[in-house]
């Protein structure tokens, strides 16, 4: 019974972490049309910064703040050369940047980096909760998720959010209205990056171990699939997508235990289905399950 509870808590923790990533991608890609194909890089930066800070003695909250700060700064650096150009250049640059980050984490030997990863990352409040820790951590993650959800809903319905959506619909027209499109896009990317950094931090403190091979490019596309399936430009959709994809991944693992499928086949099958989901949804239901909600306009 306890193991079932912790299994569900574990699942929901991952749903929460991926929900955060989904919302962060939604702010960038769903609302502003910034095609970030390197989400995993910001996630990895957050995880590593938080891990390095707390391993050397800083408290969890300092790690979380540091993760958001550094990931946001990294987003800013990516924004500078790309956001004034064609929108697909951002996709190419971010996918490349994600590989570079992974190479640095793999090849750098100082600061405890390298292929062995970082071990014994402290788990916040572990002493307080003990055996019921998975449930407690799930609560922490979901508290963060709900806080971020409220903040981003607020941002999206603010004038700032409306300009992001205007950029998505027609960049030239928005520019013509006197809005600094580049500045708004940069802010959107930095916001999304901060959030991905926070998700990375929560991930690192949950697994208490990070290594470069946890941050493969495939993870980015897992998050993309969540957003496409759940609903582009809908934050609840991003969380729904995270829940569905997580449930799907776990069920393939359970299926593997019930039926005799080799591990390789199970992994391949999972990614083939995820690829199919992307293509099929883009073809038949591009707005996703939930889709963007209509904006109510009250006449003056």
């Amino acid at each position, binding site marked *: 019974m306890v193991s079932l509870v912790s299994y569900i808590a574990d699942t929901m923790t991952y749903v929460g972490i991926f929900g955060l990533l989904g919302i962060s991608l939604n702010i960038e890609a769903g609302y502003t049309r910034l095609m970030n194909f390197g989400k995993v890089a910001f996630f990895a930066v957050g995880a590593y910064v938080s891990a390095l800070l707390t391993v050397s003695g800083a408290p969890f909250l300092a790690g979380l703040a540091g993760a958001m700060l550094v990931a946001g700064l990294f987003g800013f650096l990516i924004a500078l050369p790309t956001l004034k150009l*064609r929108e697909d250049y951002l996709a190419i640059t971010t996918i490349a940047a994600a590989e570079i980050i992974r*190479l640095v984490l793999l*090849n750098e030997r100082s600061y405890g980096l390298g292929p062995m990863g970082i071990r014994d990352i402290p788990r916040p409040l572990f002493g307080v909760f003990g055996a019921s820790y998975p449930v407690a951590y799930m609560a922490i993650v979901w508290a963060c998720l709900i806080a971020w959800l409220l903040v981003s809903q607020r941002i999206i319905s603010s004038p700032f959010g409306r300009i992001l959506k205007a950029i998505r619909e027609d960049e030239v027209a928005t520019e013509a209205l006197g809005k600094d499109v580049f500045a708004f896009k940069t802010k959107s990317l930095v916001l999304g990056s901060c959030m991905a950094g926070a998700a990375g931090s929560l991930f690192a403190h949950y697994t208490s171990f990070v290594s470069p091979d946890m941050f493969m490019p495939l993870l980015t596309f897992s998050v*993309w699939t969540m957003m496409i399936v759940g609903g582009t430009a809908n934050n609840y959709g991003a969380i729904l997508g995270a829940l569905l994809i997580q449930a799907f991944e776990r069920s393939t693992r359970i299926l593997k235990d019930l039926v005799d499928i080799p591990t390789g086949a199970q992994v391949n099958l999972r990614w083939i289905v995820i690829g199919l*989901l*992307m293509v099929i949804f883009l*073809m038949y239901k591009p707005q996703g399950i939930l889709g963007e909600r209509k904006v109510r306009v009250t006449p003056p």
Partner: protein
Amino acid sequence: MLQITVNSALTGSLYALVSIGLTLVYRILKFANFSHAEMVASGAYIGLVFNHIAGQSLLIIMVGGFAFAGAVGVGSELLVFRPLRRRGAEAISLMVASIGLGLIIRHCIQQVWGPQFLWYNLKTKLYVLKIGGARATLTSVNVVMLVSAVLLVSLVHIFLTKTRLGKAMRATSDSPVLASACGIDVDRVLIWVWFLGAGLAGIGGVLRGADTRLVPQMGWETLLSSFAVVILGGIGNFYGTILAAYILGFAENLGVVMLQNLSLSTGYRPAIAFVVLIVILLVRPRGIMGSERD
């Protein structure tokens, strides 16, 4: 230094073959096709079958890789990209779909052949090139790479400038709407563009596989460099792309030597293409031979 030049020519030949298809599709359909990486891998892997049936002739493996990768390219146009365009999908959705398609193809390859390294069964000889006091070694596969890149690029050049279909391709890549108004069947031309582009990438995959090894993510290993080549050359510019391929080949091989001199890990090699990419985007985003319009 001679060895660096030879290696640069080899890397450049590979990038030239892989990038032609990427740049043509990018120009005509206006989207970055990430599934192009899997054309490289599918050509290389089907080569294993031809290697098994037809023996140790690299030429037969190359022809097989060309035909199969070309067919995969045509299939992706007919099954994914054309239906998406018909439904009014934007270029950006095509790009995202290309990622999904890439996941499908790569994991199908991994399911059939497994994730481990594989090698062709080939007899290779080692040659030593001596010019003055400098020496460089290269294998017979390397010789095939250099010769076939020059031959294929020349053939594509003749095809694009002398044949009806080639001229139609250039017209379409200049302006699909205008081409269609001139009575060119753009959909039919596109099929050939996919076949040619993906097929050349397949040959690139066979050559890379013969030179190093086969692994399902081998396409991804060249994709980043290929995008750097395409942007450096100017999207859709055939000659710019060829030139850019050799420039990047040289930059990477020189960069590796510099990494060693700086006592950094050569694992950073892929980062060189990234640095080149960022510099192009900052300094001359339309590429060395790109037109003003993009």
